């Protein structure tokens, strides 16, 4: 079964969004779950991508990704009508959605993509939603309007102050935690370092915090253990036990080292890919 790209959009400089045919995944997917994409059976790597939304009626899933390596760049090169050879899913445990009261949703950079379906489901379950969206700069902020639609309150921050407040997400998060009543739950999704510091803030205020981890994976079914993290001192597999965990129990320092394991090789592959692309560009 192949998966046709039905629509595609560039959200900002290197972030892309596409709706892709995957009727079986769309029928089964719940917020918080992800897919493994493998562009070509012959040579591609398998990469995990969160399902940002799905449309059961049309049998499509929405993927949002940042072109930071060879495979994500190749995916970005595909056009409407092109096909993705392999999509496996939905994988991972769905988010735990219920009426908690007030839920503060903290998204950093590309983390807004996996956060949106959770915020949407939390809103639908009757929660008050406070969204804190952060980006390095205005241009890189994604899905702001989508969050506005499901949020009772929306706070935007940028590292350089080009839009919203000049701050890191931890600052408004700290302020929100100081309110009475304090939030009943925090959901933080973004770079590992951001999730780590968000958890340090919420721990001080004793606000339960869910994080969604994006580790290195191969099969996504529990078989390889490459995605393992330490949670409350125990080994957990992100693909089958997660991707969401109690953020206060995650050993982020270890996780950050593990996700860097192939940095050098990934960069080398990406550079070579870009060089190759350039050459093609010159020839044509």
């Amino acid at each position: 079964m192949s998966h046709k790209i039905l629509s595609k959009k560039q959200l900002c400089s290197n972030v892309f969004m596409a709706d892709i045919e995957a009727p079986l995944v769309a029928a089964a997917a719940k917020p918080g779950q992800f897919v493994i994409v493998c562009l070509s059976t012959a040579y591609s790597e398998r990469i995990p991508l969160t399902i940002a939304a799905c449309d059961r009626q049309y049998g499509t899933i929405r993927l949002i990704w940042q072109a930071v390596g060879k495979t994500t760049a190749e995916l970005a090169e595909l056009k409407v009508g092109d096909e993705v050879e392999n999509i496996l899913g939905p994988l991972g445990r769905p988010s735990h959605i219920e009426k908690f009261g007030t839920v503060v949703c903290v998204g950093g950079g590309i983390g807004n993509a996996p956060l949106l379906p959770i915020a949407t489901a939390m809103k639908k379950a009757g929660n008050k939603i406070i969204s804190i969206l952060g980006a390095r700069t205005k241009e890189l902020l994604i899905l702001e309007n989508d969050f506005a639609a499901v949020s009772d309150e929306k706070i935007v921050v940028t590292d350089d102050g080009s839009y919203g407040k000049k701050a890191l997400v931890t600052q408004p998060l700290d302020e929100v935690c100081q309110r009475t009543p304090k939030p009943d739950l925090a959901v933080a999704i973004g770079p590992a370092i951001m999730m780590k510091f968000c958890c340090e803030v919420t721990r001080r205020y004793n606000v339960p915090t869910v994080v969604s981890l994006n580790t290195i994976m191969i099969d996504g079914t529990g078989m390889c253990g490459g995605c393992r993290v330490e949670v409350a001192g125990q080994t957990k597999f992100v693909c089958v036990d997660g991707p969401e965990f109690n953020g206060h129990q995650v050993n982020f320092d270890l996780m950050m080292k593990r996700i860097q394991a192939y940095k050098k090789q990934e960069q080398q592959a990406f550079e070579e890919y870009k060089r190759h692309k350039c050459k093609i560009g010159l020839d044509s």
Partner: protein
Amino acid sequence: MNEQQSKKLLDELLKKYRDGTLKPSDRLNIPPQPMPVQDPMKRRKNVNEVALGYTEIQARLEALRCLQCKNAPCVPGCPVIIKIKDFIAEIVEGNYKKALDIIRENSLLPAVCGRVCPQEVQCQLPCTVGKKFKNVCLSVSIGRLERFVADWGEKLHDASVPKVAAETGKKVAVIGSGPGGIVAATDIRKTGHDVTIFEAFHKPGGVMVYGIPEFRLPKAIVQEEIDQLKTMGANIVCNFIVGRTRTIKQLMEEDGFKAVYIGVGAGLPVFMGIEGEHLVGVYSANEYLTRANLMRAYDFGKGADTPIARPKKVAVIGGGNVAMDAARTAVRLGAEKVYLVYRRSEKEMPARVEEVHNAKEEGIEFHLLQNPKRIIGNSDGLVAAIECLKYELGEPDSSGRRRPIPIEGSEFQIEVDAVVVAIGNGANPLIGQTTPGLALNKWGNIIVDENCKTSLEGVYAGGDIVLGAATVILAMGQGRTAAAAINEYLK
């Protein structure tokens, strides 16, 4: 013996054989035929198959070593009861096609089994020739003969696709495309049922594709078996994970499947639970081998996109075939030193003798009666060394093997930059978690009866998810048993 000498010997023996004057003592005098292999120094640098297979002369000489015992003790040693004595007799005659047909009556994947079966503990263990010499290594090389016949068939593209009976229209789901699934699907399809294999990976073949390396089992062989199944009209759906994409309940209640065979393998790596296992550079054998085999990481940057670490000093923990595969893969990925660390002695190693031999030839250093106590990292979180304890063997444990006992205060360190943990697999919980009513034992393995039937009507299971860690041939045996039960159930 060079080829000319072998040819001469064969001619002499065949003449006696035809005259009816070939005595058992003549047969016992034939030198056991060694398996031609790639030179160890050369093969360290490539991923091509190590064992090259018998020549025709070798195969017939080896076949003549068989005493053709009336009681054929080898046959009950085979999990699928191949008529070993009969197919060997046909090799002597040069009737390879007939030999292949005899094997195929019982085994669907002779090219695979001839390569990866642990014959020395199965058919070759009770072999009279081996008993005579009091050495199982001198038994008739049944596995190599099986492989010879299978390869002969494949070279001629004599696929001889099994006949499929008239369509029954009854749908059967086979979960997992490993050896058990392939065998079950073939047998069920033969009866005319509409079989669909569901595979979670993007390529079918299961452990034969992601786990067992190319140098031991070329992927082209597995592909031929898959292609044959497709020719028979079985459907193979990849990227479909039962339990998440669809549950067994949905397959049976909504999608019209009348019966299900679960052959998903073990699929959950066991770690040691020691300090340092999260360090960068510590892999499960599953991850290490999947990167290397399925994803072809050895071609990273030359066509393949999946990276793999290329450490200089690697410790592989474990003593089974998977440990040997991982150690030998590390050699091929350019490691200068590969240590195989095993807590018992070589005698207790579950790995095949031939693979242990091959591993040693390739320069892998065996550290026996040792086991890691912790893995030591550097300031960047990368593996720097393992600290091991020395062991001695005590009284036999429940497995019948002598229990390894750590020697207190015997700690020492081995400097390494990667550790591959190959100490086995647990049961993947996904099917159990998503299939209400499916009875599991306390380790999470599916409980089945002698027909491989589970606690659920119409649901059968076999292979590692039932047996724990088993072998390709045992999985195939169960696939066959379950298929017979499913065919009976659907009558």
